């Protein structure tokens, strides 16, 4: 009789395996899992390193002035107008996109028949997949003429209100148009999150509230929206992060000016950090200006990272409360 050796004794516990192949596998996978961290740290270190000489030569005026003059001696770089412009565009986009996407998701979750809602979900996802350069193309040739007409009407009837003042008669390249394009980009992003969050409202609660005589509005106000508040805020901030970093769609429809356009949203001229980088990069006159653009990119990165982290913390915290 042939004696077979007893099988090798192995630890079958689920946490750490003593098997050599497993240890190698674990190490490789763990290493790969930290790519995200490495990339984020890399961006911080490399772009941060480019920021140092710029801040050294410009001082804080890099962040607090509005002059961009690479040919002056010494060269002057100030991105305050761009930082403010990015925020202004984001605010305009939020004002349009937040009500629109909330109402859209309310319609999809609570009003539309199931089949219609499924089709709409697909359509909204498709909308999210349209590349921003194409939205820019559309905005330049299709939205621009229409938006000019809207802005003229706004100016004609509400021009006394400082927000809608326009002295130049030039209605192209305004923050309003750029903000509108950003809103078009944000709507599908925000909607896909709010739709999921509202869809998770327990049906028992909805039925119970209806049985108690709640109208749709009361149900939304006291059941669905409080239930999904965190997710809704998080979704809005995810969209905001995307809007702050958007470059190309804004590039075509915003006239980039370095002076701050405080709140004349239908007056030509505004700023955006991301667009500044692309528009100046092609003609950047060698190393110092490229470096200033890289520094601007660093602050853009820092800002969007902050917004995005906050958004995720909010979404995650409410996720924990719900489950």
């Amino acid at each position, binding site marked *: 009789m042939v004696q077979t050796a007893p099988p090798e004794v*192995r630890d079958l516990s*689920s946490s750490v*395996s003593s*098997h050599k*192949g*497993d240890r190698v596998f674990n190490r490789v*996978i*763990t290493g*790969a*899992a*930290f790519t*995200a961290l490495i990339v*984020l740290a*890399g*961006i911080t270190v*490399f*772009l941060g390193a480019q920021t140092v000489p710029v801040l050294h030569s410009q001082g804080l005026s890099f962040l607090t002035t509005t002059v961009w003059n690479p040919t002056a001696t010494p060269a002057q770089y100030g991105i305050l107008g761009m930082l403010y412009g990015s925020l202004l565009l984001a605010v305009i986009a939020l004002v349009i996109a937040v*009500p*629109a*996407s909330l109402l*859209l998701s309310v319609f*999809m979750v609570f009003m539309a028949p199931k089949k219609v809602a499924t089709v*709409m979900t697909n359509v909204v996802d498709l*909308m999210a997949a*349209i590349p*921003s*350069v*194409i*939205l820019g*193309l559309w905005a*330049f*040739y*299709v939205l621009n003429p229409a938006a000019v*007409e809207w802005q003229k009407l706004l100016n004609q009837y509400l021009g006394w209100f400082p927000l809608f003042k326009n002295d130049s008669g030039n209605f192209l390249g305004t923050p309003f148009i750029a903000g509108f394009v950003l809103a*078009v980009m944000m*709507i599908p992003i925000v909607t896909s999150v709010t739709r999921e969050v509202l869809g*998770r409202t327990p*049906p028992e609660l909805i*039925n119970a509230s*209806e*049985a108690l*005589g709640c109208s*749709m509005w009361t149900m939304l106000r006291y059941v669905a929206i409080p239930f999904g508040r965190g997710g809704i805020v998080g979704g809005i901030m*995810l969209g905001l992060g995307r809007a702050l*970093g958007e*470059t*190309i769609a804004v590039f*075509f429809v915003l006239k980039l000016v370095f002076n701050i356009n405080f709140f004349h949203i239908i007056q030509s001229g505004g700023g955006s950090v*991301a667009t500044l980088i*692309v528009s100046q990069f*092609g003609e950047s006159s060698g190393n110092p200006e*490229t470096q200033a653009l*890289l520094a601007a*990119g660093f602050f853009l990165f820092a800002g*969007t*990272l902050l917004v*995005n*982290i906050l958004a*995720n913390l909010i979404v995650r915290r409410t996720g924990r409360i719900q*489950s």
Partner: protein
Amino acid sequence: MTTTLFDNSRVSELRLQQAALPWRRRTANFRVAVAIAVIVPPVIVGLLWFLTSIPKPILMLVIYLPLQLIASAIAAWSQRGTKAVLDSAIIVCAIGATIFSFVILISVLWSIVSNGVHALSWAFLFQNNVYISPSTPLGYGGVGNAILGTIMVVVIASLFAVPLGIATAVYITEVRGKAVPYVRFFVQAMSGVPSVVAGLFILTVFILTGVLQSSGFAAGLAYAILMLPTVARTAEEVLKLIPDDLRTGALALGSTRARVVMKVVLPAAKTGLITAAILGIARVVGETAPLLLTALSNDQTVLNPFNQPITALPAYIFSNVAQPYPDAVTRAWGAALVLVILVAILFTITRVLTAKRVRR
């Protein structure tokens, strides 16, 4: 994101309840009131639209919307009292927002199709842009080199992002190490990196230092940064759906954990992982800013991804928008149409794959 799972028996139970909801019953009077509220305002506005010269935006926003709100409020009030007024307002606004969003989407898609179709020809799809200037008439030159460039850049990006993204997901769902919350957190944070920053990063690290030239490979690296979080998050969702019985079963048969993952879990999740990869590709295929910073542009057909600038579709569109020549603009629309068709194909593949998985 975690999804709440209902078991099917409970869903059908809820559906039974749905059928009996007495407060959802509509009376005949109610239907008549709603019908009047739905028909009267559009008719009035329709008449104003054709008979007066009130500017259309004012007509819709300042006359129609309030009129519709008031009509619905009256209908709701007459049937259900004051409480229903706000209710009717939110319904009108929700339908309005839906129409608004869809008008925009249709406007975008229609403008791409109607303008882009004029540019389409075999020459446009297969020729490159050597000897072509913005004023060259249609029929000469095209996006052949840009299509090839897009494919090249996306493939390079996938070579990095797909394995790393799946590995990240495997770490979260299979290895389940101590760092899982942190890895998740960093992947989420990475998904918020603006595309222009990804381009700048590759520019500083590889191009300004002279390691790489502006090339398809550099652009592929920038795309990979944008692609990785999408792949990782989708793959994580997919791997979570693989039942634990498969894992414990394989372990009980004596396989090592590495084999469980490689021979059982990943093959079982194959369709889902392909979906994850395609979603990642769809996320990046239209990104322009990284291309402008890392790949520049090139009128010639480029086959070597390392040694020279390369044009991809988004960059081609970018360079042709806002040109003073109508033919160049038509080319931009044509390239946009090609890009949208590409995205739509990717999108349809993911839907078909997901539908299959759900049905099974």
